[in-house]
């Protein structure tokens, strides 16, 4: 039995009278790549916001590595090694790619204020180590050539990569990726899938929200399908692909052609 990293237990989120998530239960095991999919408005990003402390659930609990995340602020959750990326604003636009990654390293090598201001040896060593680590990450993510360009001037696909590098800099145990390949072309997506596998092989558990079905089918160990705020299916890609409830929810009842298309992609 694998060790559970994240478990969502009976989570519900209501915005006034609107039910964004009605009752959500699922878990992610250590070393898994799990995808959370569902039509627009199904509550995927809301679920991410609950897991990372940006939203307080109306009911239920989120457990991460055995600890209840209730009442924890986003930065405290980040301190526990649960790091997320964002759909749209994934970078610090007015800083260079290199500085972006440096900011992601914030959690590492914190030194005292006096040490930092006076430039004492420990602060210097820590700063040097952080810079080396940032350069290494920029190279690893494949953006060495753009290291000194402002992140805001990069293409969407490249910005996504910067977002991931930033998140990795924070040394996650678990990474939540919110639509990481939107805005990427096919070849970029292909490279990104390799990257996600590489990250997993470094021992990071991954949960992702994504609309790109072929990508989801190829990268995931397990898929959780959300519709109208509840989970309608859960299982390995092959099962999900054939699940009639999923096909209906995702593609609509009269979408036989599209179903065929999905089958072809898969």
């Amino acid at each position, binding site marked *: 039995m694998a060790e559970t990293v994240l478990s969502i237990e009976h989570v519900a989120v209501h915005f006034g009278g609107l039910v964004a998530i009605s009752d959500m239960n699922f878990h992610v095991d250590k070393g898994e790549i799990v995808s959370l999919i569902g039509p627009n408005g199904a509550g995927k990003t809301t679920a991410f916001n609950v897991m990372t402390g940006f939203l307080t659930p109306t009911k239920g609990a989120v457990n991460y590595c055995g600890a209840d995340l209730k009442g924890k*602020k986003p*930065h405290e959750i980040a301190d526990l090694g649960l790091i997320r990326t964002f759909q749209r604003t994934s970078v*610090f636009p007015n*800083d260079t790619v290199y500085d972006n990654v440096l900011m992601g390293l914030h959690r590492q090598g914190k030194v005292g204020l006096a040490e930092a*201001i006076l430039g004492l040896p420990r602060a210097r060593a820590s700063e040097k180590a*952080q*810079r080396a680590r940032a350069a290494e990450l920029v190279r690893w993510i494949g953006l060495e050539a753009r290291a000194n360009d402002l992140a805001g001037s990069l293409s969407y696909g490249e910005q996504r990569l910067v977002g991931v590098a930033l*998140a990795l800099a924070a040394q996650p145990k678990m990474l939540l990726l919110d639509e990481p390949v939107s805005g990427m072309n096919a070849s970029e997506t292909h490279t990104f899938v390799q990257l996600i596998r590489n990250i997993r092989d470094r021992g990071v558990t991954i949960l992702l929200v994504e609309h790109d079905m072929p990508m989801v089918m190829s990268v995931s160990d397990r898929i959780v399908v959300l519709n109208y705020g509840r989970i309608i299916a859960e299982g390995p890609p092959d099962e999900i692909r054939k699940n009639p409830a999923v096909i209906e929810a995702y593609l609509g009842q009269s979408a036989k052609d599209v179903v065929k298309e999905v089958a072809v992609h898969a």
Partner: protein
Amino acid sequence: MKQIVTLLCLAFFASVPIWLTDPYLLNALITTGIFIIGAMSLNLLLGFTGQLSLGHIAFFGIGAYVSALTSLGFDVPIYGDFHIVHVPWPPIAGFFLAIVISGFCGYLVGRLSFSVRGAYFVIVTISFAEVVRLVALNWVELTQGPLALTNIPSITIGLPGLGYLVLKTKFHNYYLVLAVAAISYFLISRLVHSHYGRAMRGLMENETLAVAVGIDVTKTLTLAAVISAGIAGAAGSLYAHYIRIIDPDVFAFISTVTMVIMVVSGGKGSLAGPVVGGVIFGLLPVFLRPIMPPEAQWITYGVVLIVILFVMPRGIVPSLAAKLGLARAGGTRRASVAVSERTAEEHA
């Protein structure tokens, strides 16, 4: 390169009293210098965290009053026969106490308003400055109210056994202000280049993302507020001991506006910005005074400000740096340093 320019500027400023003997101009330089220190502290908040403190003069004024009262002493009735009596301490103690107490006020204001931020911070700081002004105006037993605190002693420095120096002349005060300004500049520079500074910049650019990588918003912003207020307090203390008389007018809103103008015209978020903006707008009235009537002076002042912001919307220093291609040079140097460090490690 950048360091050499900074050192050359410092050397130039240090040489001024040697060739400039006109006491009127030297006086203008000293008061401008004091306001530049205030503007630098404001820049730490406005330029590096994006928070606009429109009551920044409060920290300056608190510094001035704390320092003056510490060195003058006071006897304040609290209730019935109960008095708080303070015997005069040396002015230098007032200087440090001013930094501590202003910093503490910065902490309180930061704690109160940073959980909401933005427009609320602006409003809280304005209200805070107004409240402090009213206290200074009405607590006559302590502050003398509108009668002003007078005969504030000059700052004395020295060590037991080595003799003392009373910083009474303009020549002395110029160097005192220059020294405090240089230390503040150095301190802010080190701070913004450390990971604390990166956290501030991250919060300003994309708060959600910054929080998601583990940056503590309240802690980071409060730290900036404390240091900013402390430096403003130091400037206020210098002001009190140089002018040697202070009244509640030190809390005037127009002084905050002057600091904001210095920061914005020079370039917020640039270390040298408040210095450049401060020199221009601190000395402009001095040069305009002999050549035009008062009404025309203020119109010219406004026109100069508008022209600067029109031609260089980001402020003088960032715009010039971009033109000369210096802005990027810094980043490139840092990155190449890191890369060479990495190769060094691989070789080892």
